[in-house]
């Protein structure tokens, strides 16, 4: 069996930690997601945090906004990395979907996680 994907969540402030904690509570699965905050670091330091969280493994990186310092830090050093895919607009639904589909390829897992996230946005 191939290595399961790692999820990395990169957000402003305390959001990543809170999302990871909530996703773990819902799924009952710990360790599938690593939170990264942009608090207290410049561009290079944030890039280093992201790289350390990915750890050279195949991964999907979830980012809060589709622009800004978090996305920039992710793309700066990972955009040409085939084993890493990036999804923006992270929400809880996509993280939970990802946790249970980590045996897929990065592209497959990223695509279905993004769809799950989109489907969760409703005006009921």
């Amino acid at each position, binding site marked *: 069996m191939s290595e399961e994907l790692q999820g990395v969540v990169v957000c*402003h402030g305390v959001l990543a930690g809170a999302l990871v904690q909530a996703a773990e509570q819902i799924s009952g699965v710990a360790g599938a997601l690593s939170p990264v905050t942009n608090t207290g670091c*410049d*561009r290079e*330091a944030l890039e280093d945090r992201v790289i350390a969280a990915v750890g050279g493994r195949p991964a999907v990186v979830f980012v809060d906004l589709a622009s*800004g*310092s978090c996305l*920039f830090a992710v793309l700066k050093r990972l955009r040409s990395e085939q084993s890493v895919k990036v999804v923006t607009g992270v929400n809880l639904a996509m993280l939970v979907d990802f946790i249970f589909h980590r045996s897929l390829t990065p592209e497959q897992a990223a695509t279905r996680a993004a769809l799950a996230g989109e489907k969760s946005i409703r005006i009921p």
Partner: protein
Amino acid sequence: MSIVLCRIDDRLIHGQVVIGWGRAMAINLIILVDDQVAGSEWEQELYRMAVAPEIEVRFVTVAEAATHMADWQSNGKRGLMLTGDVETMVTLRTTHPEVVQRINLGGIHHRPGRRERLPFVYLTDQELRSLQALEAGGAVITAQDLPTSPPVALRSLA
């Protein structure tokens, strides 16, 4: 109008700049003075994504900034000039003191040799001395991450 804010922020164009300061000061021109970004199309594209379409963004080298300064002072736009480090802003102030009169320390984060002055401002002693020299020459320098935060005078950071 002209350049209404000169900011040092090592995250360059991001939320605090675009949303925080951009809206509060009705900015419609952002000038990023950074030699590295000025030569990188994909980085420019990414930074543009963070900015509303009604705001013009210019990416220039330090040398190019010098040639456009007069235009930016008279083109009718409300400009925010941004650098990623103290050194670049010192250069701009030295060459164009009539433009760079007030300097905002918005985000200078930890690196080896720097000491924390505020949670969002870390400076080496040399960087602090450079800024103090600018202030002695007439520049007004304060640290303030967002318009809703109180400005902190440079003398308080020593």
